[in-house]
């Protein structure tokens, strides 16, 4: 089966998580010694594919061939032993230990029972030279290094053993232009040494600088693999968005946004110096597009008071709001469905009932005493209305499926009844049917005159459901597109705008 020149082949790889197919029958081969770029929107399956390769996930079906032999790593160590190394976006370094100790942490050279420091430093110096850090002492503690240097240390760590495939997950996300150039130089050198590099990036212009071939994933499916020289940015964007958008998304022409409901002026918060302003009208569904890390979620959290603001004004129905905590926000008629429903949304170990009424216990209590039957009635009503599948209202939300968990979260805010509903990735990781129900619900809220903000990484979804889309790029609002001008290329270009300039 294995053709000559391919170091790794994925054959019909499918990987399902509860309620979602993360990879769907993916066939991909990577040639030995090439720089292969993986592209796709957030959630397209890039990371999942990489994690399958390095033994974090086992595919539900399909097989892999590595260097001509069947390959099925049971754990990350098995992959490392084969020479498959990953440098993740989040560094995995021990800040108080030296560079040398970090590089060789997994197998420190020993002299008897003691660490052979002489050899350790000598070996580390050799590897540091390989990654162009020969002017650093191997004894320096990692905490004293800059981000770019830490990244190179991560790569050095990956190269410390015999490394045949090096996987880089968005390595340039936090680097300065000259540091990026430096990194690319290193990657070209490694390539010349015969190391295969799989490179995940959001920055489309990088493809042409270092990529040999490009693979685009979408919704867990492989869209295609092409020579980088055959592609240009518009054609890549088309491949990334691609899918047709029609009846998948409900759009109610009869709901027309009216007066301004929410007016955010010059919002500035920590880590984001660019002032952000936008408005939301009654009955409007406002989409928020942008890459992960572009400031979408952070802006919504700051608006809601979940994270501190530095400056900016918020007006609701013309009245200025002082929001210093989520409590202020909720009491003034704002609500936020967080992106991460397990750690920030649900109280997992507690029942559907507790999770539903948590947003307003005053309504179901008298003089501080809870009225259990009233709580049951309300929870029952939402389970019914939202079509939530649960064995009972006392069931811990932990045991529900993703879609049903999300519905419980929505129920709790419906129960509170706010003026402004902010949904951060409300449909992530849930199945198509539940998604559709959530869209219908957004429309119901809009028809009632509420204002809805939907943050999503799924562009077709935003274009299908929203009146207007706000685009974030690298901490700035780079554009605002009305429904009659919706076009995937325009929006993607706006999302990448600030990154392309670098």
């Amino acid at each position, binding site marked *: 089966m294995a053709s000559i020149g391919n170091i790794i082949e994925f054959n019909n790889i499918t990987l399902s998580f509860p309620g979602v197919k993360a990879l769907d029958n993916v066939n991909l081969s990577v040639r030995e010694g090439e720089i292969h770029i993986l592209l796709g929107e957030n959630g397209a399956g890039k990371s999942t594919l990489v994690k399958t390769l390095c033994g974090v996930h086992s595919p539900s079906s399909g097989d892999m061939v590595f260097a001509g032999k069947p390959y099925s790593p049971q754990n990350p160590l098995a992959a490392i032993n084969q020479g498959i190394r990953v440098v993740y976006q989040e560094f995995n370094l021990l800040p108080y230990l030296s560079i040398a100790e970090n590089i060789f942490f997994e197998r420190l050279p020993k002299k008897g029972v003691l660490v052979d420091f002489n050899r350790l430093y000598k070996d580390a110096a050799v590897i540091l030279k390989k990654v162009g850090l020969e002017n650093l002492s191997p004894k320096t503690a990692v905490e004293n290094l800059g981000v770019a240097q830490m990244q190179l240390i991560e790569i050095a760590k990956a190269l410390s053993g015999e490394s045949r495939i090096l996987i880089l997950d968005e390595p340039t996300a936090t680097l300065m232009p000259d540091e990026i150039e430096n990194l690319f130089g290193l990657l070209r050198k490694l390539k010349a040494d015969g190391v295969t590099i799989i490179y995940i990036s959001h920055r489309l212009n990088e493809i042409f600088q270092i990529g040999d071939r490009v693979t685009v994933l979408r919704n867990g499916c492989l869209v295609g693999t092409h020579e980088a020289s055959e592609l240009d940015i518009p054609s890549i964007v088309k491949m990334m968005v691609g899918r047709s958008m029609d009846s998948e998304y409900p759009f109610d022409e009869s709901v027309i946004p009216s007066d301004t409901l929410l007016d955010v002026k010059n919002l500035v918060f920590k880590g984001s110096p660019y002032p952000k302003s936008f408005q939301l009208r009654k009955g409007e569904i406002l989409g928020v597009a942008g890459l992960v890390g572009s400031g979408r979620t952070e802006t919504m959290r700051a608006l*809601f008071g979940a994270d501190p603001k530095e400056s900016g004004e918020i007006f609701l129905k013309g009245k200025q709001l002082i929001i210093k905590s*989520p409590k202020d*926000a909720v009491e003034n008629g704002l609500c936020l469905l*967080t992106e991460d429903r397990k750690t920030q949304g649900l109280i997992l170990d507690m029942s559907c009932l507790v999770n539903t009424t*948590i947003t307003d*216990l005053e309504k179901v209590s008298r003089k501080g005493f*809870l009225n259990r039957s009233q709580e049951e009635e309300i929870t029952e009503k939402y389970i019914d209305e939202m079509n939530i599948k649960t064995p009972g209202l006392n069931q811990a939300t932990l*045991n529900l499926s993703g879609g049903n968990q999300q519905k419980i979260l929505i129920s709790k805010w419906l129960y*509170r009844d706010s003026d402004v509903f902010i949904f951060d990735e409300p449909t992530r990781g849930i199945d198509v049917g539940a998604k559709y129900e959530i869209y219908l619900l957004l429309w119901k809220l809009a028809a009632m005159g509420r204002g809805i903000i939907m943050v999503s990484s799924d562009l077709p979804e935003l274009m299908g459901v929203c009146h207007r889309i706000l685009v974030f790029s690298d901490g700035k609002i780079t554009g605002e597109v009305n429904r009659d001008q919706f076009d995937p290329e325009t929006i993607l270009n706006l999302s990448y705008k600030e990154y392309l300039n670098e």
Partner: protein
Amino acid sequence: MNNNNTVKEIDSNSGMNHSARMRSLLNIFLKEVGIGIVLIVLVIAFSLGAPRFFTLINVGNIFTQISINTVIAVGMTFVILLGGIDLSVGSVLALCSIVAGKILINPSLPFGLAILLAVLLSVGCGMIIGFLNGIICETWKIHSFIVTLGMLNIARGMALQISHSKTIFNFPKVFNQIGTTTYLGVFPAIFIIAMMLVILGSVILRKTVFGRMIFAIGNNEESVRLSGHNVKFYKIMAYTICGGAVGIATIMYMMRMSIASPILGVGFELNAIAAVVIGGTSMSGGKGSLVGTFLGASIMGVLNNGLLLIGMGDFARQIITGVIIILAVVLDTYRTKFSAALNS
């Protein structure tokens, strides 16, 4: 196609309802009764081993012995349910006793007023220190282990300072009479107070908004905060309640022992924590009950008393008590696993 689905759902639903009921029964059994069975086994074993164990007088003794720890452990349960801990309770008890003792022996005050003031000051003093514990933890986001460890020293030092390291006694007779009163020949007054506090605490935890918030915050603080609640307030209140419980325990102790001393309560925090943990409350918060805490305190009291009666020496008793604490928690991990398996 659609019809098929509905039929299947109804089937699986009714099936679920039945087994769900069985499961929830088993869960309750495992949660509350499990620890109760340990207690019953111990009582039976000691009754067989020591003839004097199951007598009216001795049972009354045990009730007396567990009362103070029960009350402190009730307060401690609130804090541990939030994932915190209060190491200062023993020292705070000493400090409260000095404050209350000074008032009680004040000759210019009539008995009744002196007793009322002593109770109010003891509870007030405990609540203030609890409040401080809470506010320091929450303002600077310091783990309660450290803050209350500091407070343990501060309160002890203050008790020694205020009392000039002298013991206070000669309280009004009425005061000590309450402490030695026994109803129906077996229920000491202070035990009845302890029981009332267990019930009051249970009602607060199970039936009120405040109790709901304690469990919710203990499970997922961030979710609760993002649901629009002032999490800090509830956390500070829990420490304050714990301090207040210590204040009440102090008065009970003084009624019973007729002394106030700056060296009282050494190690009380450990007994209280042990009672809470044996009672099945999770150290990481969010799970537990005051009935469990009471049963935990009872197990500790029965062990102590029973081992003494069957002639076990001090040292051996300590060893066995230690073993039981660890065993209780080890068993609890199996219970958790078992009920998790039951529910999945």
